[in-house]
């Protein structure tokens, strides 16, 4: 139910608006945060938040929550679905260990005080499927990022160095897929995989197209910036998952040089943990996190997210099909693959991170190192769900970033290999609560270009989470157990002004919106019509007029027109 809300006496952290653990009241009307004067106090529901932390709802800017990949993952792994979180009652039955059902995804985010989550890789031709699953996730706002980096249209326009047509194509494609921005996964590498290969360096040529990952990335950044989309290019780098790949990652980040945007980064490099390995083989693999952090910290136009690895079960699922095959060979595990028309591909492999396994322990350490060494205004907290592990473990990561003591305790149970191959044991830095709230709210919202998310200023969406501790009284270095527990079970989660969670329990079900970006006003799609017709006739297996998603097919869409 929609109420006017008066959240009273809470201790607010709102980094975007410079509020650092100050006692203040928050007012909510019609799903938005409003001035006190807008509220009729006699009609208003009061929430006493005395001595409790009040922040904006968490924003997960990179997770795999919807579409054919996670659903094939569920199908492949019935053992994942045996964990029962909730039997059917007022709410839907909810099951899943790391891979969750769609209702469970919404419920678990809500319980943690997260209110927004973005699907980070939407196969364009599968867009309707992705949207159907997004529509099945209750509680949170959502969106999906279509993948561009191996799409033949992109290769063609990059090869022709025709940025205008590339821009037009991007605008067309995002509109057709009801997508949110430009996701790039192993540019060129997935096309090479169609012939059994990969593009591991920025200058490997894509078979039959004469273009390189370097050119693809640069052109996509240029086009995205000229279109001035709300979100930048969102890049899964080449050479993922291979020892020594941190150099590729650094070289890739430098491609952002020369581009700028006064609102946000021009390049977001995602789940960097998987791209931050030093060494030359799995025998001498080490952490490249410090070198990467140095580069990111020295640039003002690149952001990253951690892609932290959590010990326990996970499922690797990416558009990086050649990497997934490598992982399958490495682990001898089940393997699904999907080559998709002329758009790229994807793969899925179950994995389990074991503390005593040297490589896994190193991956665990590297994720945390990135969170610690990169400035808090440039690194978002993620696990690349479900690749690095469950998003339900974000509270663990939060606590680890804030407490060296907790890290020391955890280091005792992991492979000693970490001591020599990683930086983590020697890192003294501890993030503050403000910083961690920034990394999970204001920053992720800014990276995505969502102006009404991640903060509690007037006009913001009334997505609010309240946690059961007083930030002014907690010692985050020592009270890590309290932190870890409190962030798992929000005292209140408020979504669009509706109380959906109370004391960690679901109390109401809401359906968030699905954002999509419309930049077609900035281009004339006529310019690429002939190319589209030709490609659809020759290389697609569906008709062009049946390709894509209409807004009316989406449950609760929000169209964002690019200015």
């Amino acid at each position, binding site marked *: 139910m929609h109420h006017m809300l008066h959240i009273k006496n809470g201790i607010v952290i709102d980094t975007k608006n410079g509020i650092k653990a100050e006692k203040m009241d928050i007012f909510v009307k019609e799903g938005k945060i409003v001035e006190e004067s807008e509220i009729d106090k006699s009609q208003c529901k009061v929430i006493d938040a005395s001595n409790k932390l009040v922040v904006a709802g968490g924003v997960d800017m990179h997770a795999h929550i919807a579409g054919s990949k996670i659903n094939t993952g569920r199908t492949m*792994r*019935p*053992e*994942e679905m045996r964990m029962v979180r909730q039997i059917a009652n007022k709410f839907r039955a909810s099951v899943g260990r790391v891979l969750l059902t769609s209702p469970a995804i919404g419920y678990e985010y809500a319980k943690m005080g997260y209110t927004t989550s973005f699907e980070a890789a939407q196969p364009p031709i599968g867009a309707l499927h992705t949207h159907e699953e997004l529509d099945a996730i209750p509680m949170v706002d959502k969106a999906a990022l279509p993948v561009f980096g191996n799409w033949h249209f992109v290769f063609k326009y990059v090869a022709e160095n025709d940025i205008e047509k590339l821009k037009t194509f991007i605008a067309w494609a995002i509109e057709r897929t009801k997508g949110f921005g430009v996701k790039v996964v192993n540019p060129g590498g997935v096309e090479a995989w169609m012939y059994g290969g990969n593009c591991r360096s920025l200058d490997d040529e894509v078979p039959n197209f004469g273009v390189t990952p370097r050119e693809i990335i640069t052109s996509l950044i240029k086009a995205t910036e000229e279109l001035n989309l709300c979100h930048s290019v969102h890049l899964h780098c080449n050479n993922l998952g291979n020892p020594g790949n941190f150099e590729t990652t650094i070289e890739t980040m430098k491609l952002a040089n020369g581009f700028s945007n006064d609102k946000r980064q021009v390049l977001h490099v995602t789940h960097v943990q998987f791209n931050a390995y030093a060494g030359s083989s799995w025998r001498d693999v080490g952490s490249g996190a410090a070198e990467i952090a140095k580069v990111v910290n020295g640039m003002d136009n690149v952001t990253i997210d951690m892609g932290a690895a959590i010990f326990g079960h996970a499922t690797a699922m990416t558009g990086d099909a050649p990497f997934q095959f490598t992982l399958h060979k490495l682990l001898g595990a089940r393997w699904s693959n999907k080559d998709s028309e002329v758009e790229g591909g994807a793969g899925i492999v179950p994995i389990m991170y074991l503390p005593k396994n040297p490589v896994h322990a190193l991956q665990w350490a590297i994720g945390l190192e990135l969170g610690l060494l990169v400035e808090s205004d440039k690194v978002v907290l993620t696990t690349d769900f479900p690749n690095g592990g469950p998003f339900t473990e974000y509270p663990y990561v939060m606590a680890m970033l804030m407490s060296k003591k907790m890290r020391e305790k955890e280091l005792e149970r992991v492979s000693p290999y970490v001591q020599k191959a990683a930086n983590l044991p020697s890192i003294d830095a501890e993030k503050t609560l403000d910083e961690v709230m920034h990394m999970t709210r204001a920053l992720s919202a800014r990276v995505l270009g969502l102006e009404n998310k991640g903060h509690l200023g007037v006009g913001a969406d009334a997505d609010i989470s309240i946690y059961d501790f007083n930030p002014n009284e907690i010692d985050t270095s020592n009270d890590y157990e309290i932190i870890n527990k409190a962030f798992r079970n929000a005292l209140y989660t408020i979504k669009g002004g509706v109380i959906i969670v109370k004391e960690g329990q679901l109390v109401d079900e809401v359906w968030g919106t699905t954002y999509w970006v419309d930049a077609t006003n900035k281009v004339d799609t006529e310019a690429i019509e002939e190319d589209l017709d030709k490609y659809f006739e020759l290389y697609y297996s569906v008709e062009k007029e049946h390709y894509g998603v209409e807004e009316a097919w989406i449950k609760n869409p929000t169209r964002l027109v690019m200015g």
Partner: protein
Amino acid sequence: MLVIKPKVDFVVTVEAEITPDLAEDLEKAKNFEVYYGKDKVKLKELFEITKEGDDKKLVLDGDFSKVKWIGCRMEDGEIVVKGNVGANCGAYMKGGKITIEGNADDWLGAEMSSGEIVVKGNVKNCVGCAYYGDMQGMKGGKITIEGNAINYIGEKMAGGEIEIKGNAGDFIGTEMTNGLIVIHGDCGFVGGDMKGGEIRIGGKFELMPTFKKSEEGFVGDVNVGGKGVVKTL
């Protein structure tokens, strides 16, 4: 010892995860919750329960072919089923003994790690197998079938012993890594992707073409670099 008799002919199956632990307390046993279709009911609503003596033993007297999960996860004690029994009997069993005087259904002793199961009659499929998505089937203990079995015997088996006195169907010891399967009669496909362990067969069988003849029998499966042994009894 408790004697448990069905009171009615069951319209749909009953899921009763009963173990010999129940023998300790009659009241507790009577109020033990089981599923009858969508209804959660007390054991006493469906079964007549009487206590005879103090040993840790259940005697299931009657037709239990529509009762599933009997003896699941049991650790010790004894269960005797006087008639037939439903699916998943003795699944995940850790110890004790189950004797079934009639026939058993699918998934008998699935993923069991210790203990003993004896079936006087026939059994269906997936004896000692791994449930879907799990990496290992039976890890220890012994299953003896006096009659026949159908398909999927000891799939992904990692230890223990399965002995079938009669015939069996297809897919014996598929992806088996350890343990012993003995079939006195005939069976169908044997040894696909077998990595280790031993299969001994008394009658006719169809071995995968990917085994190599050696002094100790046939060794394979070469597709997985297996060291499994298949030989005649």
